[in-house]
């Protein structure tokens, strides 16, 4: 099955062409084409996953490279696919969510005038996303990166008759462009120094020291900038909430489960190139994002906006997890989040479909009307809140553990903030998610007219909800995930002073030379036969398995810290989660505290949160008006300097033409006229020879002959 993996992305591409060309004339407007192709992709992904799972090898890798284009022998660019455990998991996540969203859309988009086009766009998105996942080089991930950006733009602005939707599409595209520029710069740095673009080649080149130090940090941050844009991290998170103007299935597919996770996937995919400094930047960005967006989510009243900000916040968790060295944790959260956030979004879609409103102030009591939506929504909310037994608990707990471990091992006490911030936000997450659930599904209906019209959605809509809710239990993830998805060996190596992966290991390496840990370490080392020749080289290798338990003292100390960190993190996260849920019930269900009065008491803060920390206004005041002023300056330059030059040259042309005209009139025409008058003059003289009398001619002829004869004779 894995040999045919390259077919997977092409299935949706085929369906895109079919739907865009003849979709309107197909029965059911072609929705079954898209659904069938993505379902086939899902089947193949499941096959691949089973194959990978049966191998059960952390280092499993299936790698095919084919030459693509090249300039003579220099600069050959390859194409191909790379499937390792991470890819297999991502394939499964993408195809599952995508298939369910296709199914959901059949009900949700029913009767839309551009129904077939919607499915065509979904297909092109699926194609791009699957291509991105399967890419084996920076070049190809960049190509598909841009393609998902395009499909996101098309889908956000799907209802482009609405100005807000069209604007949101443009905003998403332009903000992403900023991030993509950084990504491109990162890729160019890598290509300029290493001369290759395949992941493995780049890792090898960096391992050989072709790119190191500050430049490597910059390259890593550049690549991460792409992830900032696509994964809606601070300071480029502003597009994601606006993107909710798109149809709700799109929000679920692109802006919750798959495309926004692409940034996280990218960071995970190129994990070995990041230097410790780059990791610190990544962790900071993650922390700032998860905190800011969670606080904004508390004050929002639009059901989709709350979910959008919570998505930003959860992506912040993933980025933070990756940044503090919790590779498995971040990617586990990616997978679990994809399921429960897609479930939440589709659930919100179901609610919106029923009450035709997005304002949670107008809902309430819907659990009686929409029991299936309610139950699935509640399960997903429990998952995102980190309640034990649900998937979110499993992954978020790992992230918190990694953050705490990082803080405890770091010599800088400030680094504890990663854990504390994430912990506080975990409580906040539980609070605002339960606020959403309580306001939507519990209590008395606030708008009776809308409540009376509400109804449970058709099966094509609740079946995906049920499947996704089922996938929100931790039982699906625990165990194998930690074994199969393991932190790759860092090639950024040596600068490991404040490395997230442990300072402690640095010291051991220095002390122990090449002595290494047992089993888990061995598997990592297969590809690096020359080990331990110098302390830093040892460090770079030992840095990896440090968290998996070692035989020597330092490592067991490490393992002890890790173990301690993870149990502390677990207890505290459960505690704050429970606290958040409790608070939500106290405020919104029991009414012991009146939220309006609290909001009034801290009015400036509430207003600040309601206005999303004034980010849009800030960008409006700085970047947008700045570029507008710059454009005006350029316009002035264009109008006065460039146009002035053009006008000057025009006047010069007129003057030169005047001179040339005079020359033409007098010199050239004079010559022509002179020639003509010379011709007439000589003609009037010579015409007298032409008598028209035949005997004159004959006489001249005979006379001439006689003259010639005489000349010849004498």
């Amino acid at each position: 099955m894995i040999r045919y993996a390259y077919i997977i992305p092409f299935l949706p591409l085929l369906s895109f062409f079919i739907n865009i060309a003849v979709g309107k004339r197909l029965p059911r407007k072609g929705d079954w084409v898209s659904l069938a192709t993505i379902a086939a992709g899902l089947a193949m992904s499941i096959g691949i996953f089973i194959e990978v799972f049966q191998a059960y090898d952390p280092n499993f890798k299936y790698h095919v490279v084919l030459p693509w284009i090249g300039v003579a022998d220099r600069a050959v660019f390859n194409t191909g696919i790379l499937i390792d455990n991470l890819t297999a998991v991502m394939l499964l996540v993408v195809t599952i969510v995508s298939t369910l969203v296709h199914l959901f859309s059949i009900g949700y988009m029913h009767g839309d005038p551009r129904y077939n086009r919607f499915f065509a766009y979904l297909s092109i998105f699926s194609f791009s996303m699957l291509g991105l996942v399967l890419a084996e080089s920076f070049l190809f991930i960049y190509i598909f990166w841009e393609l998902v950006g395009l499909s996101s733009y098309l889908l956000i602005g799907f209802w482009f008759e609405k100005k807000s939707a069209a604007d949101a599409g443009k905003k998403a595209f332009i903000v992403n462009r900023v991030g993509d520029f950084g990504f491109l710069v990162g890729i160019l740095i890598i290509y300029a120094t290493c001369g290759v673009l395949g992941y493995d080649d780049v890792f090898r080149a960096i391992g050989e020291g072709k790119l190191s130090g500050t430049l490597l940090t910059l390259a890593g941050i550049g690549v991460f900038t792409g992830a900032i844009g696509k994964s809606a991290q601070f300071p480029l998170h502003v597009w994601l909430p606006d993107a909710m103007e798109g149809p709700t299935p799109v929000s679920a597919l692109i802006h919750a489960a798959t495309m926004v996770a692409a940034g996280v996937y990218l960071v995970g995919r190129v994990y070995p190139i990041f230097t410790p400094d780059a990791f610190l930047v990544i962790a900071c960005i993650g922390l700032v994002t998860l905190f800011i967006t969670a606080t904004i989510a508390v004050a929002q009243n639009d059901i989709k906006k709350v979910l959008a900000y919570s998505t930003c916040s959860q992506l912040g968790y993933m980025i933070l997890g990756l940044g503090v060295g919790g590779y498995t944790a971040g990617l586990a959260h990616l997978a679990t989040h994809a399921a429960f956030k897609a479930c939440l979004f589709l659930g919100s879609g179901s609610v919106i479909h029923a009450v035709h409103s997005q304002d949670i102030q107008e809902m309430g009591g819907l659990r009686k009307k929409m029991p299936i939506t309610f139950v699935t929504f509640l399960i997903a909310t429990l998952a995102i809140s980190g309640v034990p037994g649900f998937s979110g608990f499993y992954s978020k707990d790992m992230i918190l553990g990694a953050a705490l471990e990082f803080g405890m091992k770091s010599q800088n006490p400030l680094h504890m903030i990663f854990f504390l911030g994430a912990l506080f936000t975990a409580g906040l997450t539980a609070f605002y998610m339960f606020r959403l659930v309580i306001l939507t599904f519990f209590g008395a209906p606030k708008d009776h007219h809308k409540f009376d019209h509400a109804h449970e959605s058709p099966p094509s809509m609740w079946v995906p909800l049920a499947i996704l809710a089922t996938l929100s239990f931790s039982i699906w993830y625990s165990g194998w995930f930690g074994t199969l998805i393991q932190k790759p060996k860092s090639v950024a190596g040596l600068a490991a002073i404040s490395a997230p992966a442990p300072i402690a290991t640095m010291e051991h390496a220095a002390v122990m030379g090449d002595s290494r840990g047992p089993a888990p370490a061995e598997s990592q080392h297969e590809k690096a036969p020359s080990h331990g020749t110098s302390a830093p080289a040892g460090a770079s290798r030992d840095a990896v398995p440090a968290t998996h338990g070692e035989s020597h003292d330092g490592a067991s100390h490490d393992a002890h810290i890790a173990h301690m960190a993870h149990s502390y993190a677990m207890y505290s996260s459960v505690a704050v989660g429970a606290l958040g849920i409790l608070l939500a019930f106290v405020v919104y269900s029991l009414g012991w505290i009146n939220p309006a009065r609290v909001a009034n008491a801290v009015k400036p803060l509430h207003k600040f949160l309601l206005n999303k920390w004034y980010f849009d206004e800030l960008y409006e005041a700085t970047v947008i008006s700045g570029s507008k002023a710059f454009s005006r300056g350029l316009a002035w330059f264009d109008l006065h300097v460039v146009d002035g030059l053009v006008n000057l040259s025009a006047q010069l042309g007129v003057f030169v033409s005047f001179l040339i005209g005079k020359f033409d009139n007098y010199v050239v025409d004079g010559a022509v006229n002179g020639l003509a008058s010379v011709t007439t003059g000589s003609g009037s003289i010579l015409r007298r020879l032409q008598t028209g009398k035949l005997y004159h001619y004959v006489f001249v002829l005979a006379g001439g002959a006689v003259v010639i004869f005489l000349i010849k004779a004498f």
Partner: protein
Amino acid sequence: MTLDKLLIVGAALFCCGLYTVMTRRNAVAVLMGVELILNATNINFVAFSFFLTRMMGGQIFAIFVIVLAAAEAAVALAIFLRMFSTTGTVEVDDADQLKG
């Protein structure tokens, strides 16, 4: 019979033709003068051929000239007929409409 005598005959005939062409105003008479000149050349062709080469080139050339003269006469007489029907005369001096 020598070459000289034949050439004298040819030269005399040529002079007669030339004189006719130069002096006569009637187009038909001019045409007859031209015929005389052609026959003078024919005599020269045949004479030179007979006395100098002993090959039949000159005689054959003379026959060509006779054929050509016949064709020429036919064309020229046709032209004179058209001329007569438009202007009512065949005097060459009167055919000066194209003179500038």
